[in-house]
């Protein structure tokens, strides 16, 4: 349904996207990446909100930037939080329905608002809504015309855990019904709940794509750097080198050593065994490169020629 071919986007000297190609079919696909990875730029290009600097995007085989007709099939949740002032949820969603040319926009709006578990009879202006409620209103306006394709930019932001689960279930159901649902997120665990089909974007490049579990495995198999503080760091260092699970060890002061390992799970097992065997006190164990940024950086570096 969405065909992305060698898309690049730059703003002056800043490259937001570079050589991104992917095909997104029916079902739910998650677009995963840290903040600033280019997710929103890609979503804006897919929706026709901006044109790519290079490459092409086709939505239902049409150019979303220049063929306005394709927008009838698109439902979009943009990233920005602001909603028009002075209107309530029903008026706002009904306006979306009216602009879509629905025969009964008010009825469709009520249905969409109920779908996201809000009250269509709530006459308060949107400015008085909480962040989570505004987020659900944004989802309602995207659903009002029952589109074939849903593009949702960080739609779970600001939702409480219960609503997060309910909305995730809604997206999964919409995908299972045959719609193309693209959901962006920068939270790995969120994506795990949503979809098995993932596109990973990092530093403007497509870092990985495919089954979530395969990508998760890839992330676990990368080299890890861990700081260990113990009662006798030198003894621990020499014992660890003998296990075959550690590729490098260096002292870091304050009774600490920093080790590099490619085999996280065997390393952990060996570490526990050694601590008991050598009668050491393990005071601290902290991963130094487990943040998402470094994980994604690793994926990009791995994919680069």
């Amino acid at each position: 349904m969405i065909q992305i071919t060698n898309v690049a986007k730059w703003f002056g000297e800043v490259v937001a996207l570079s050589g991104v190609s992917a095909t997104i079919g029916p079902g739910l696909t998650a677009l995963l990446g840290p903040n600033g990875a280019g997710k929103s730029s890609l979503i804006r290009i897919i929706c026709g909100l901006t044109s790519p600097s290079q490459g092409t995007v086709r939505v239902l085989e049409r150019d979303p930037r220049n063929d306005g007709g394709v927008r009838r099939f698109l439902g979009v949740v943009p990233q920005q939080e602001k909603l028009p002032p002075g209107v309530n949820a029903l008026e706002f969603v009904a306006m979306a329905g009216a602009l879509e040319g629905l025969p009964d926009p008010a009825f469709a709006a009520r249905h969409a608002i109920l779908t996201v578990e809000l009250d269509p009879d709530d006459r308060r202006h949107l400015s008085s809504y909480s962040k989570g409620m505004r987020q659900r209103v944004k989802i309602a306006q995207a659903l009002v015309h029952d589109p074939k394709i849903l593009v949702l930019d960080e739609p779970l932001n600001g939702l409480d855990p219960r609503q997060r689960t309910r909305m995730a279930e809604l997206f999964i159901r919409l995908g299972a019904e045959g719609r193309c649902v693209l959901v962006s997120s920068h939270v790995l665990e969120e994506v795990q709940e949503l979809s098995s089909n993932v596109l990973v974007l990092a530093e403007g490049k497509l870092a990985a794509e495919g089954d979530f579990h395969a990508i998760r495995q890839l992330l676990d198999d990368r080299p890890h750097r861990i700081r260990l503080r113990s009662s006798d760091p030198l003894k621990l260092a020499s014992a660890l080198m003998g296990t075959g699970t550690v590729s490098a060890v260096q002292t870091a002061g304050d009774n600490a050593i920093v080790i590099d390992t490619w085999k996280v799970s065997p390393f952990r097992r060996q570490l526990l065994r050694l601590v008991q065997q050598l009668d050491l006190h393990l005071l601290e164990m902290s991963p130094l490169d487990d943040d998402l940024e470094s994980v994604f950086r690793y994926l990009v570096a791995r994919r680069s020629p």
Partner: protein
Amino acid sequence: MIALYRILLRTSVTRGRLLAFLAAGALIDLIAYAIRVSDYTNRETSTFQMLDVAALALYVPVVALVFSTSSLGDLASDGTLVYIWLRPVARWKVVLVALAATLTVTLPLTLLPSWLAVLLAGASLQLFWATTAATALATGAYVAVFTGFGLRVRHALIFGLGYVVIWEAGIASIGKGPAALSIRHYAESLLGHLSHQTLPGVDQADQGPALVVLVAVTLVGAVLTTVLLARQDVA
């Protein structure tokens, strides 16, 4: 489109703006009343000149500027334009609705003080109708131009105020060349022709061309705004 019209109207109309312009309009009316009580011999000419300088040169363009730039411009700058832009609606329809919403508030704000000024000054019915035509056409032209300006230019209100004060009210009244590029010039020419008055030291455009230019500026402004909206990168 009615829903869009209402939302655009609510976006640009705030209580503060309305009160500020009602106060400014009242000031014009106060000057008009002062003319009535102080000038018995040349009341018609004095009212005409006051309407040209205070209303057509400043009040009308500033009213149009404030409401027009905020119509689509505020939506573009705060990111809510996306909710309109993404819908399968012809861009010219969106622009027409935006212009209609802006004119709904700007025409009463510009016409009512002008009408009241003519009445309070005790001027002729001829000046009343001349003021109506010139003010309405100038408001339309300014609204069309400033709506596109607001969509394209960041801080359009500040730059627009500079344009109104420096160009329309200042440079354009100095010579024939700059005047030809000023909406105010054609509006005051129309006002002069229809009320059979002349401004001292001002070369007026003929009535026909003045009318044509004001209508043409409105149409071109609307078309350009449509093109800008269609090509706009939306946040």
